[in-house]
């Protein structure tokens, strides 16, 4: 499949101010918690104090005695999930792993799991009423460690979970929820050819996406049963689908309006509170607002699988990789939800190697159910593979970038997951990284440098777009994808490019689920590619319509009309209609000007990134300072380069945080000990240097503008770059993240 990829652009590739910028720097932009409606009451969720327990009874009577408490709920108000499957955009969901996160049914599987909820006339009253809800528990033994959980005699979480991917299907339930193995070539033969083999095990802790905006929503139901939800989410249609399935209310009764979203990184690709607000609204007859506390965000939303990756790589003495063998164990929390598949599939995707084996095991423990985080599943195994690659390059006395150039995948190579690469930018990115002045900087004592390369597959999927033209020729572009990092700007730029009009005449709007056709969520690095694809399609249809209108006015055949710089042109430029002129005449040429596009993007293409990190280690305290940081990434075509850089910088810093300080600390009771920004230590401004960026553009051959997804791959290379730099600077080998000062110091002193 080949198409003509456009290379000369007028608007695409420029850096205009984002259309929603004014609202965001003045505080006018409305986020999840910013909507207050008349008659609104407040919901508060009662959470489990135990990591594993049977719910014997729930008694709301004391809570209901408080004047102003208007509704209560528990799992009894939700349909039994049974074996119902929910069709999701990217993957199908099993209702039974979603419904208990909204309200525990019969049993709680992790500390702070939602058990009940109350709604009252003020937030403080609701909080007080929640304390009066009496829940009787029968405490069960819990298990927090994956290895302990995988043992036969471990406390069993679910009696209906049988290890998937094993043949024959086991008859005994297990906390090991899935296993898989992928192979190509002959792994033993590969190692037999190797002159050097290095094997390491790298551990990555459970962490959180760390978005600054807590989950928030307002739900109301009118007398006809129509449900209105306002919420911060990565996907309004996803909220509609999941909330309908969880509450049992028909999907057609929902209208979901996405607010501005204060960060998500995958953590807002599901629901936590919306179904609760809907049921409380239904039972109270009042609009219900729920805002999660920061503590609850950490305890009961989002977290990201911890992992343990054993990797063994063999190379010849001249630096060719002969075999890559990985085993990954991921903690999925209390329900199967970990990204074990991509972890197994993609860990070694940067390297050309005939003999690869990769296995994965997903284990359930009494911790919060994990969810997606930026390139889910990729950073963990790539940390292990990349660190070993760095170690090998060092042992072979080769430059780590040269070593990668020797082994990097290129067009035509077939990775473990089987789909051959088309044109890709890994080698270009590696060369750019090597050329960068930061890579030439001289390292002093106690300083070290690390390199990380990474791959992410990116998603396409369904999107729609509507373009309307006003009487004066201004353009409204409507899409259904929440703008999480500047996507309105890229939508406007692509529409401007097709229509040949300045971006300032285009107003892009993110609309509710009643105002546009279905769109999959903002995630998987897909919005610019897929929703942008829908915008391009709609704009092209609009251009055809405009040409038709001009042809009618001039009594010419449409074939004689050209669309040039926002104008219909005919007769060698003798006849010209501007868009505004055509818009003014729309009423007499066929009615309002508009176009709609429905798009299922099959043209996603992988993106690659290379990071280089320089650090200095304080040998007396184990403290790490980031000195220099360089991100190189293939964007295919950067629609708005400043926001592409932003994705690279943001991903890099999230990865730095994960490498150095971020981790979930559970106590022996299974309670999270650091459920706040004070002790869940995301990087702050003073922790960092400037994050230098180089955008590489190797066009995606499947996309009309050459676009690739850029949002996710950026979080994959930082961990190995940082970890290698620290280990080199200090002359240590710590493989257990985060590389917090006590750990680094202990290794130095060992």
């Amino acid at each position, binding site marked *: 499949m080949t198409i003509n990829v456009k290379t000369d652009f007028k608007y695409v590739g420029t*850096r205009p*101010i*984002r259309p929603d*910028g*004014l609202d*965001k*720097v*003045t*505080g*006018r*932009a*409305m*986020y999840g*918690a*910013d909507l*207050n409606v008349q008659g609104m009451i407040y919901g508060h969720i009662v959470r489990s104090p135990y990591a594993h327990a049977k719910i014997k009874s729930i008694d709301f009577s004391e809570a209901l005695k*408080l*004047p102003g408490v208007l509704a209560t709920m528990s799992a009894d108000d939700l349909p039994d999930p049974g074996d119902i499957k929910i069709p999701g955009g990217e993957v199908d969901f099993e209702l039974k792993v979603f419904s208990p996160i909204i309200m525990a049914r019969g049993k709680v599987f992790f500390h702070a799991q939602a058990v009940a909820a109350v709604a009252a006339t003020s937030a*403080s009253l609701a909080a*007080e009423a929640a304390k009066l809800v009496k829940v009787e528990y029968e405490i069960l033994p819990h298990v927090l460690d994956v290895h302990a959980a995988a043992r036969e005699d471990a406390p069993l979480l679910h009696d209906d979970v049988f290890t998937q991917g094993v043949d024959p299907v086991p008859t005994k339930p297990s906390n090991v929820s899935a296993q898989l193995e992928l192979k190509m070539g002959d792994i033993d033969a590969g190692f037999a050819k190797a002159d050097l083999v290095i094997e390491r095990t790298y551990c990555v802790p459970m962490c959180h*996406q*760390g*978005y*600054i*905006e*807590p989950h928030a929503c307002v739900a109301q139901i009118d007398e006809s049963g129509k449900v209105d939800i306002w919420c911060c989410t990565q996907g309004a249609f996803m909220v509609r689908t999941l909330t309908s399935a969880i509450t049992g209310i028909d999907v057609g009764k929902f209208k979901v309006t996405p607010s*501005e*979203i*204060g*960060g*998500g*990184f995958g953590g807002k690709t599901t629901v936590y509170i919306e179904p609760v607000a809907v049921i409380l609204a239904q039972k109270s007859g009042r609009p219900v607002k729920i*805002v999660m*506390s*920061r503590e609850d965000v950490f305890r009961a939303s989002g977290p990201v699988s911890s992992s343990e990756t054993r990797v063994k790589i063999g190379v010849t003495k001249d630096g060719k990789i002969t075999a890559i063998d990985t085993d990954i164990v991921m903690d999925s929390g209390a329900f199967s939800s970990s990204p074990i598949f991509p972890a197994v599939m993609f860990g070694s995707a940067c390297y050309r190697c005939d003999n690869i084996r990769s296995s994965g095991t997903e284990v359930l423990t009494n911790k919060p159910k994990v969810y997606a985080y930026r390139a889910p599943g990729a950073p963990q195994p790539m940390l292990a593979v990349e660190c070993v690659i760095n170690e090998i390059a060092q042992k072979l006395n080769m430059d780590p970038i040269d070593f990668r150039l020797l082994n990097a995948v290129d067009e035509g190579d077939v990775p473990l997951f089987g789909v051959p690469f088309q044109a890709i930018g890994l080698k270009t990115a590696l060369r750019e990284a090597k050329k960068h002045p930061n890579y030439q900087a001289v390292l002093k004592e106690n300083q070290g440098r690390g390199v990380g390369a990474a791959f992410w597959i990116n998603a396409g999927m369904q999107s729609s777009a509507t373009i309307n033209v006003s009487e004066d020729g201004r353009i409204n572009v409507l899409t259904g994808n929440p703008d*999480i*990092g*500047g996507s309105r700007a890229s939508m406007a730029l692509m529409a401007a490019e097709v229509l040949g009009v300045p971006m300032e005449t285009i107003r892009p709007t993110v609309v509710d689920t009643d105002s546009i056709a279905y769109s999959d969520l903002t995630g998987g690095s897909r919005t610019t590619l897929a929703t942008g694809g829908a915008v391009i399609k709609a704009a092209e249809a609009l251009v055809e319509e405009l040409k038709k209108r001009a042809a009618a006015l001039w009594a010419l055949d449409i074939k004689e009309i050209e669309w040039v710089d926002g104008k219909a042109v005919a007769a060698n430029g003798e006849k010209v209609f501007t868009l505004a002129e055509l818009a003014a005449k729309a009423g007499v040429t066929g009615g309002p000007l508009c176009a709609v596009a429905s798009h299922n993007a099959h043209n996603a293409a992988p993106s690659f990134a290379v990071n280089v990190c320089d650090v200095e280690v304080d040998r007396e305290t184990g403290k790490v300072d980031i000195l220099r940081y360089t991100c190189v990434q293939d964007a295919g075509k950067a629609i*708005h380069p*400043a*926001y592409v*850089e*932003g994705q690279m*910088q*943001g*991903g*890099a*810093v*999230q990865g730095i945080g994960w490498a150095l300080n971020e981790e979930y600390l559970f106590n022996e009771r299974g309670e999270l000990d650091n459920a*706040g*920004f*004070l002790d869940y230590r*995301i*990087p*702050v*401004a*003073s922790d*960092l240097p*400037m*994050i230098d960026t180089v955008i590489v553009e190797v066009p995606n051959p499947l996309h009309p503008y050459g676009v690739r997804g850029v949002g996710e791959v950026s979080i994959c290379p930082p961990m190995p770059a940082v970890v290698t730099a620290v280990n080199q600077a200090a002359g240590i080998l710590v493989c257990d993240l985060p590389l917090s000062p006590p750990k680094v110091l202990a290794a130095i002193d060992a």
Partner: protein
Amino acid sequence: MSKQRKTHVSTTVNGEPCEFLCEPTQVLSDVLRNNLNLTGTKEGCNTGDCGACSVMLDGALVCACLVLAVEVQDRDIETIEGVAKEGKLHPIQQKLLEHAALQCGICTPGVVIASKALLEKNPDPSESEVRYWLAGNLCRCTGYDKIIRAVLDAGAVMRGE
């Protein structure tokens, strides 16, 4: 439950006199957002760790979530809603836009308030001074790079460079 008597507070918000009734335990961010509908002040943590609720209180930069609303009697509060004046953005707002220094934008109001406070006190800060001053304004999207550049650039504009 003992019905709590609400307290009447008169204060000044963005130069305008303002009155509200609040519970004694309500914090200023809550009152600004939910009583006065000034939702530009954001809440990210409610414990003073994220800076999204930054406001000026009698000229001092504070987290509105760590101020009791009853404390602001006869005080002078400036919120994000009062920064752009007479239809014109403050240089820091303009520079944040030009540098694409926001992605999701939830931390932006707090960053605007805190940066403006810095530049008014220290018109020509070093990169390091900006970074340390803004350490209490968490941003999870940008990696801070473009924010720091925008603040330095806004400083230059305010100095007339």
